[in-house]
């Protein structure tokens, strides 16, 4: 008797099932539960709580995260690895339109710092309470609000003009012999 809602034909067994059961009501949908792979969708308001619980489990680490543009917004997929079980658990949280925002897990999991900045740059997802939301991938001269990994961004037609040479004289261009 589990309280976790699962899709038809999926039973919570093995190590992956145990991890999902421990997350309990934070999980809103179990999409895959195999011996070494699991996919769950969580309540988008519970990202931090889920991250805290997963990080506290032994042998867990955040491998990375993927942002995917879907109809209702941007799906943020956090990929958690468990060793030595060799399990990859993918935790999905929807950053719904129009805000496209979820709570950042970077304050709890430092490994999420860069990847959340990357998703912010490339897809325009917003991460509330991120400790350092400077640009990571895009250049500072790249226009605001243009996200190159969006499906409607065309690499040729939508490419912004190259910035003019900086005139402030500071920074790394003084580098080198």
């Amino acid at each position, binding site marked *: 008797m589990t309280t976790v809602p699962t899709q038809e034909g999926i039973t919570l067994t093995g190590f992956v099932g145990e991890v999902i059961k421990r997350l309990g009501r934070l999980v809103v949908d179990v999409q895959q539960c195999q011996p070494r792979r699991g996919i769950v969708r969580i309540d988008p308001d519970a990202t931090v709580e889920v991250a805290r619980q997963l990080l506290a489990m032994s042998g867990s680490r955040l491998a990375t995260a993927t942002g995917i543009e879907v109809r209702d917004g941007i799906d943020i997929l956090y990929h958690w690895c468990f060793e030595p079980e*060799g399990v990859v658990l993918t935790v999905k949280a929807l950053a719904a339109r129009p805000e496209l925002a979820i709570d950042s897990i970077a304050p709890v999991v430092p490994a999420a710092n860069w990847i959340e900045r990357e998703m912010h740059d490339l897809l325009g997802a917003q991460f509330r309470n991120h400790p350092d939301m400077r640009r*990571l991938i895009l250049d500072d001269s790249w226009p605001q609000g243009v996200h190159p990994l969006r499906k409607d961004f065309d690499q040729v037609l939508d490419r912004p003009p190259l910035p003019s040479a900086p005139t402030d004289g500071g920074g790394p261009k003084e580098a080198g012999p």
Partner: protein
Amino acid sequence: MSHRTVINIGPFHPLQEEAEFFQLYVEGETVVDVDVRISYNHRGIEKLDESKTFDQVPFVVERVCGICSASHPLAYVQAVEEIAQVKVPERALYLRTIVNELERLHSHLLWVGLAGHFLGYNTVFMWAWKYREPVMEILEITTGSRVNYANCKIGGVRRDMTAEQLQQIDRVCVDLVGPLDMLTKAVLDDPVLHARLKKVGVLTPADAKAYGATGPTARGSGVAIDVRRDDPYAAYDRLDWQVITAPDGDVFSKAVVRLLECFEAAKIIRQCVRDIPGGEIDAKVEAIPPGEGVGHVEAPRGETFHYVRSDGSNRPVRHKIRAPSYNNIPTFKASCVGLQIPDVAITLASVDPCYSCTERMCVALDAQTRKPLYDFAELVRLSQLKTQQMRKEW
């Protein structure tokens, strides 16, 4: 309050293969904080892959990195094979293992050489690269190229190896063990290197977990994680080998892990040559159904992670690539703080940062006057100088 200075390392410098930008915040000689900026060479490969067919993507992703050019395609095809539930022929699994371990051998030897150079041990640099060369040559003989092997395809491998080629590979591994032994002893028995590298750039197991460190960076901190053992792929679960760890988390531990892993790699390759079964090398996959899959592979620097989503068409809807250095480089925030400036170069080098994977270079500017204080060449010189001094005092 002491005077705080910013030392810029990057983003472009002749000593660095690619662009990456470290800013060291120093008070006197002591590093108090590190900031990293990446992506000066971002090539948009994830976006590009969305316009390629499933069969074309391996050739794109092997160009993510010239050194991990066996690991990235393998991680990708494993993700796709997970979606399509492909059973890969045994012989192909062994061939994948051989190429991936040859890659580990040449990558670790490259690192040993570079680390030697940073410390002023240029003989080590010459030796390591000399002994690396036969590995590169055998890769060229068997796959057709020193880099970008075009080896993996969905459902198997593209190119078989003849019995003669397998014997040549075996020969290379046998011949490599002697020089590897010498290199390892030269490092492990050198009292100056002990003094120079121990307790420098320490990454604690807790920090390794928090930053999601992988590969030798984590194993050097005593965290025994290895995708080859934990989530076996290719033929690793059929072979006898050890996960190498070292307990201290310092630069010395990471060097030990890499050197000892070379022996394991040679051992794995020799077992593959001995045990490889005959038969098909390709499962002949026809279509990729809708679904999502992850593939991860233990590349020389750590776990390479790929996520692929398919909608049933002939192109991936989304392909996420995460190279190991992306998780390993942020550990500098933990391992560099408190170091002296001459120790920074080798600590930065100790995770074997791969710039394709992530991004780097270096100049020190005075925070007030913006005049250059150190560039990366200067940091390497300071590092070499410190070794010389220690050698004299010894």
